[in-house]
């Protein structure tokens, strides 16, 4: 009897502690908007975002600095768009810039490049449908031009998969792509890996980076099979449209970061022609 009481009090005690943790977590996850306006400031070629004269900080507590003006302004807009609560999970630009600065995964450019090269063999675009003839035709029509562009742009030959086997990736292809990826700086590669994970396809991401496809179009191609099935089974807004909106905003955010870093690069190179 006494044992039972002891046990039950232990159980309630345990329940209480988890409850406290839950509320704490929730409090953390939905912080209220504590600022009125947002802005940007410039300090020696770097841009910072301000929330009512306070500087925006990264998760480890350092002031967030970006090298590009439009990017800083877009982050300020992102914070300005928060209404009652701050929903950090949907603020991709802030997240990408903070991750690039803090680097919580302790990655470097080579790690990310290797990740891409290994990803290439499992690229969505290399797996055509085997069972459904109609879907296969659609994939050939929509994916074909992108694959063709990819081979032409990088001057490589890439086979598509047969069955479930990984298609071979030539050593030459790996070398060319590695050189291409390494020409970007770390924040850009970090953003690119975010985009690749959203699209599940390095080739589609490259097509976006090289301005062949808009984020909206690339996401459509990445979700081609889903879209095909939707024609038959109907669309559910809280699953399909939510997914589409999320992926597109992710890809667009990563592209904004990549393109602004590239722009800076060229701007810097042009400013000092004598030094080169």
């Amino acid at each position, binding site marked *: 009897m006494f044992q039972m009481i002891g046990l039950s009090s232990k159980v309630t005690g345990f329940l209480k502690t988890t409850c406290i943790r839950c509320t704490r977590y929730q409090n953390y996850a939905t912080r209220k908007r504590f600022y009125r306006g947002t802005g940007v400031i410039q300090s020696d070629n770097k841009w910072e975002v301000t929330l009512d004269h306070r500087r925006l900080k990264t998760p480890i507590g350092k002031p967030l600095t970006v090298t590009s003006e439009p990017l800083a302004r877009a982050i300020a*807009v992102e914070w*300005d768009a928060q209404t009652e609560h701050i929903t950090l999970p949907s603020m991709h630009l802030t997240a990408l810039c903070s991750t690039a600065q803090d680097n919580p995964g302790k990655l470097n450019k080579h790690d990310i490049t290797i990740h891409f090269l290994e990803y290439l063999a499992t690229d969505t675009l290399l797996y055509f449908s085997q069972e459904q003839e109609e879907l296969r035709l659609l994939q050939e029509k929509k994916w074909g031009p992108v694959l063709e562009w990819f081979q032409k742009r990088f001057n490589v030959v890439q086979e598509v998969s047969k069955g479930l086997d990984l298609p071979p990736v030539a050593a030459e292809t790996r070398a060319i792509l590695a050189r291409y990826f390494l020409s970007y700086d770390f924040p850009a590669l970090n953003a690119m890996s975010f985009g690749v994970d959203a699209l599940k396809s390095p080739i589609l991401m490259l097509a976006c980076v090289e301005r062949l496809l808009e*984020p909206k179009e690339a996401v459509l191609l990445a979700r081609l099979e889903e879209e095909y099935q939707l024609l038959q089974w109907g669309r559910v807004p809280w699953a399909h449209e*939510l997914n589409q*909106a999320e992926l*597109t*905003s992710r890809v667009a955010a990563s592209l*904004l970061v990549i393109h602004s870093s590239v722009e800076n690069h060229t701007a810097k190179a042009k400013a000092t022609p004598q030094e080169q």
Partner: protein
Amino acid sequence: MSSITSKPALVTLRGILSELRKQSSSKKLADNQMVVYIFNQYRRYQTTDQQHCKAIDEMHFKAKTYHNYLHFSRKYKEINTEFKGKGERSIEETARMVGFKMPHDPKP
């Protein structure tokens, strides 16, 4: 030659402005720092966006990407709030759903 004042570019500009109007906390659009910046950029690349060895359509592509970002992150939030679970229903609500009454409710 692609100019930023071509019709598609202006359609993108209007799209961005409409998104910013929906998301901005300031009442007047002219107070928004991003709007001022975007207008400056559009004026600067009015004749051509091929300054500074930029690729054809580079600025317009950037504008389109930004519009995609603003539009779809807003849409994501909207769908999320619309379909988000509101937690457990109260006993009264559940009773009403199945057509029962609570013991303390007045009888008809």
